[in-house]
């Protein structure tokens, strides 16, 4: 749409600006402040320069948490995106099945995140959980509290349970926007199921898939509540992701300097990712 140049539009944006500045800019400045200072208590601060940043970047703790985060994101994307596409392709196109599927599938998305954690904590327990019981009765030694691999498997299944529906819903929205004529033309040409998918459905889903991919990546990159409830970051440190580590550092140990430096680094990574997201999305907006 052709937009007119009007700087008075700033007045309309002003309320948003003030509100978001209060809840984003001021806190962020506090973090920056802490990240370059040290304290011995009594509210006496002195300049520490980039020491905290060096500390964080040289610590194994940061790199381990970052690696764990990246591996986790990679695994859940590798499962959720293809699974979401397959389910969306097989969704009913019309009739009573459509609203039933949509409502039931969206259900996990609206459960408070710590309740999601609680549900899976209970579900996976060997003594009282359905999943834990069934798996144990099959003779597999499964215990997410003690075994790091089991903890990871539990968290990944939980995330798939929680968020695959998002991919399904987005893909489905892309699919229903394809006119019937496309399919009829493909039928006349005798196109196989694969080529219908490859040349008609996939290109139409490209945009929503992109959004799904980026949203899932970023949200899994800042995951906190669910692993915190299920495993508390353990066993050991095996499921301590960046957010969990950060909260531990800032509120648990009250190491303000390192925590603030870690926050800034974390935020810069997110900023970079958001920029990629924005660029990709606006270019695809421009393409229509």
């Amino acid at each position, binding site marked *: 749409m052709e937009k007119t140049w009007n700087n008075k539009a700033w007045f309309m944006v002003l*309320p948003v600006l003030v509100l978001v500045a209060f809840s984003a800019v001021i806190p962020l400045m506090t973090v920056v402040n802490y990240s370059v200072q040290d304290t011995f208590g009594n509210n006496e601060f002195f300049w520490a320069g980039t020491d905290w940043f060096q500390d964080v970047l040289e610590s194994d703790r940061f790199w381990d948490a970052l690696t764990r985060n990246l591996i986790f994101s990679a695994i859940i994307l590798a499962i959720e995106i293809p699974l979401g596409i397959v389910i969306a392709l097989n969704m009913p196109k019309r009739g009573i099945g459509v609203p039933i599927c949509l409502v039931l599938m969206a259900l996990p*998305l609206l459960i408070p995140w710590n309740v999601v954690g609680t549900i899976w904590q209970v579900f996976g327990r060997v003594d*009282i959980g359905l999943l834990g019981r069934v798996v144990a009765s099959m003779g597999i030694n499964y215990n997410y509290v003690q075994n790091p691999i089991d903890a990871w498997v539990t968290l990944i299944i939980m995330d798939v349970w929680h968020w695959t529906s998002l991919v399904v819903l987005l893909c489905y929205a892309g699919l229903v926007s394809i006119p019937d004529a496309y399919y009829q033309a493909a039928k006349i040409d005798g196109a196989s199921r694969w080529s219908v998918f490859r040349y008609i459905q996939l290109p139409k889903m490209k945009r929503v898939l992109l959004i799904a991919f980026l949203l899932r990546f970023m949200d899994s990159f800042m995951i906190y509540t669910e692993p915190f409830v299920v495993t508390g970051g353990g066993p050991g440190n095996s499921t301590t992701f960046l957010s969990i580590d950060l*909260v531990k550092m800032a509120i648990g140990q009250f190491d303000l300097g390192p925590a603030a430096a870690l926050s800034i680094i*974390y935020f810069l990574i997110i900023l970079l990712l958001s920029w990629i997201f*924005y660029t990709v*999305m606006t270019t695809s907006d421009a393409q229509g």
Partner: protein
Amino acid sequence: MMTTKQPLSQRLSWLVPTIYIVFLLLPIYWLVNMSFKETSEILGAFTLWPENPTLRNYQVIFTDPSWYSGYINSIIYVVLNTVISVTVALPAAYAFSRYRFLGDKHLFFWLLTNRMAPPAVFALPFFQLYSAFGLIDTHIAVAIAHCLFNVPLAVWILEGFMSGVPKEIDETAYIDGYSFPRFFMKIFVPLIASGIGVAAFFCFMFSWVELLLARTLTTTDAKPIAATMTRTVSASGLDWGVLAAAGVLTIIPGALVIYFVRNYIAKGFALGRV
């Protein structure tokens, strides 16, 4: 080969979503199942169906103020947040969808970064900021804190819906002598009513599911139900039945509102861009 295979695979295609939905519902079924059991049955026997169905767990929640006030607190700050977010986002989204102005693209991008910002980064500074203003443990503190990600979300969703309204409608209204506020309230808002509904739904949803900030900013008076639940988990006398019942009750509001926006959910998640 293709002609014989395709009908079969299409006839069986309903299986895929069905299996998926069963997978989704199994953990929820287990939670509901547990919420109707007595503690002894949960810990002692392994039953797929409560043998002595009891409403005791729900009774505990509805009679104990420390439980049910959690729900009231959650609903108060969620509603406050939804109202604030949508109200301030409406004019901003209109500006973004209709005008170009100095720094508009940077501003739009900056808003997005807040939607993507990890709440963990903000937990500590929020605590200090709101302490300085004496807002800790108030509903409004949580409501404003959640604006961090809900206002950008609302702006993005509303902008998407508003861009779908042709600009000629604005121009015709001005020619007909409508002032801007009158045009906005009488003509424009009704036109994008579904968009407002979707934006409100998403604000409601993300404020409802968030725990980290809500827990950090509250102690007793405004403590959300989700935080009440974590407290129970760490307490020594673990009452699984009550915990399950509390969990079931947090699912219900979402399940209710989801029905109204079922056709727009995808558009909302795509930030108004499907």
